[in-house]
């Protein structure tokens, strides 16, 4: 079993709700795709080469300022539950964690992580530099990832083309290699059924959305990851500006939708958020999906100041710790344990009780 407490903040600093607009935005993620020019890309390289890539990057990372104290996790040597744990903390992609069909991580798959910065190694590209910040913090998160990119780039030869920019294994990432994502909670737009229109609008301006866990994941608990679709033809700051402007607009729409709901259907909304709270507080069995949807209801209630005494931080913690691997580890059982929903309900009850007391 890996000891995540070794990480300075357990790798979950991003959910402390300290960042800007954290009542709506859970986290901001920056990812830069890079490849080493002296190695073929991941799809064509051998186990030996992946080890060489890992050794070369680790060597440079140990001499860097930003990753000198990095914790290292070799996904290819971890049990499935530990890999799932790192994935649930948003520290590694599903692909790197090997949680797809055959359930194995590829040889050399590694995560280096220090505070809010990390590098995934031997993912689809040799390096995926990533920065994860709490709340809506595109520029701050990019500035940090950019510093790490510069540090590593001084001692590693990255594959770069004068016309196409940073070369990646998939043409959808070429150029800047930058994917910026904002994980945002949009229950108002979902309830007013405006969400489809908003998402279509985003697609028209070159943005895309994904679910809670990024690529290929479904939307649960009304959380959407909004990110740039294109990576070429604009500078990093132009891409960030554009995404930032659109996210701010979506935030405005969400606030407006909430006002409309409170104005036109106050009783329904009040009933909805308290019903969610009541179920979380007293239910005896909760599936992950149900817990996520109820947490979304309570988060809305807290956001529109209908539910007092519950902090966004607590809701964020519940979001992470009620996921299957986290709960299983905390309870000392397997993630497919039949009574996990019962354990989840008990866990949620205990957290809410200690937060708001028995009077809540």
């Amino acid at each position, binding site marked *: 079993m890996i000891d995540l407490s070794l990480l300075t903040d357990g790798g979950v600093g991003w959910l402390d709700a300290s960042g800007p607009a954290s009542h709506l935005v859970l986290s901001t993620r920056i990812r830069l795709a890079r490849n080493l020019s002296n190695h073929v890309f991941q799809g064509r390289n051998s186990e030996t080469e992946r080890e060489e890539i890992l050794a070369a990057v680790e060597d440079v990372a140990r001499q860097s300022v930003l990753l000198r104290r990095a914790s290292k996790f070799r996904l290819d040597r971890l049990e499935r539950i530990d890999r799932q744990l790192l994935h649930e903390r948003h520290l590694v992609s599903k692909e790197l964690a090997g949680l797809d069909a055959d359930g194995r991580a590829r040889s050399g798959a590694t995560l280096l992580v220090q505070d809010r910065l990390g590098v995934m190694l031997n993912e689809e590209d040799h390096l995926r530099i990533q920065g994860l910040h709490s709340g809506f913090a595109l520029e701050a998160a990019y500035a940090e990832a950019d510093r790490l990119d510069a540090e590593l780039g001084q001692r590693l030869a990255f594959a770069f083309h004068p016309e196409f920019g940073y070369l990646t294994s998939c043409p959808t990432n070429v150029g800047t290699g930058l994917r910026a994502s904002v994980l945002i909670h949009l229950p108002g737009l979902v309830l007013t059924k405006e969400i489809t229109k908003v998402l279509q609008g985003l697609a028209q301006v070159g943005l895309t959305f994904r679910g809670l866990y990024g690529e290929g994941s479904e939307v649960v608990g009304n959380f959407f990851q909004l990110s740039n679709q294109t990576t070429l*033809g604009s*500078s*990093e700051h132009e891409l960030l500006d554009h995404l930032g402007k659109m996210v701010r607009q979506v935030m405005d729409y969400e606030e407006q939708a909430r006002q409309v709901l409170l104005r036109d259907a106050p009783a329904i909304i009040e009933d909805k958020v308290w019903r969610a709270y009541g179920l979380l507080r007293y239910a005896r069995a909760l599936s992950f999906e149900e817990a996520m949807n109820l947490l979304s209801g309570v988060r809305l209630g807290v956001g529109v100041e209908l539910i007092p005494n519950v902090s966004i931080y607590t809701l964020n913690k519940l979001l992470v710790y009620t996921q299957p691997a986290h709960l299983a580890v905390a309870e000392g059982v397997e993630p497919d344990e039949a009574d996990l929903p019962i354990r989840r309900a008990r866990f949620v009850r205990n957290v809410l009780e200690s937060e708001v007391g028995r009077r809540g």
Partner: protein
Amino acid sequence: MSCDQCHEREAVIHLTQIVNEQVTTIHLCERCAAEKGVESPGGVAKTPLGTFLAAMGKGLPETTPAPRSPDACPRCGGTLQDFRETGRLGCSECWRTFEAPLRDLLRRLHGSTHHLGERYTETMADPGPEPARAAELRERLRLAVETENFELAAELRDQLKVVE
């Protein structure tokens, strides 16, 4: 359908020939086809190399021996067909080898082909330590063996010995 030659076994190979503008199709069983020197793609799989290549996930060549496609990337051997199947390029050299078709694709994907972001210069980093050179040689050696270019393979093996 029975074999046109022996009229006994089931015909598995259907050979269409055009001779003097006359189209003829002959149907042969595997044994008669082999006697006539016609090899089926299925037959390739039965050779040890065929099984080996299939196990490596490289797919089966249509005929043996498989000459490396002239439009393959000189560094990793990847082809446009590979790219179409996987959506992934094999190495940074593929970007140069398939520059023209990729430029079209980039225009459709990103609406542009020109990187306007931060620039990286090779001089920012060392060309790479010895192990990287070894890795490159090993990769070229693997390709040389795969394409049965044994003369080049021997030369690369010698170079690799020096590096390692």
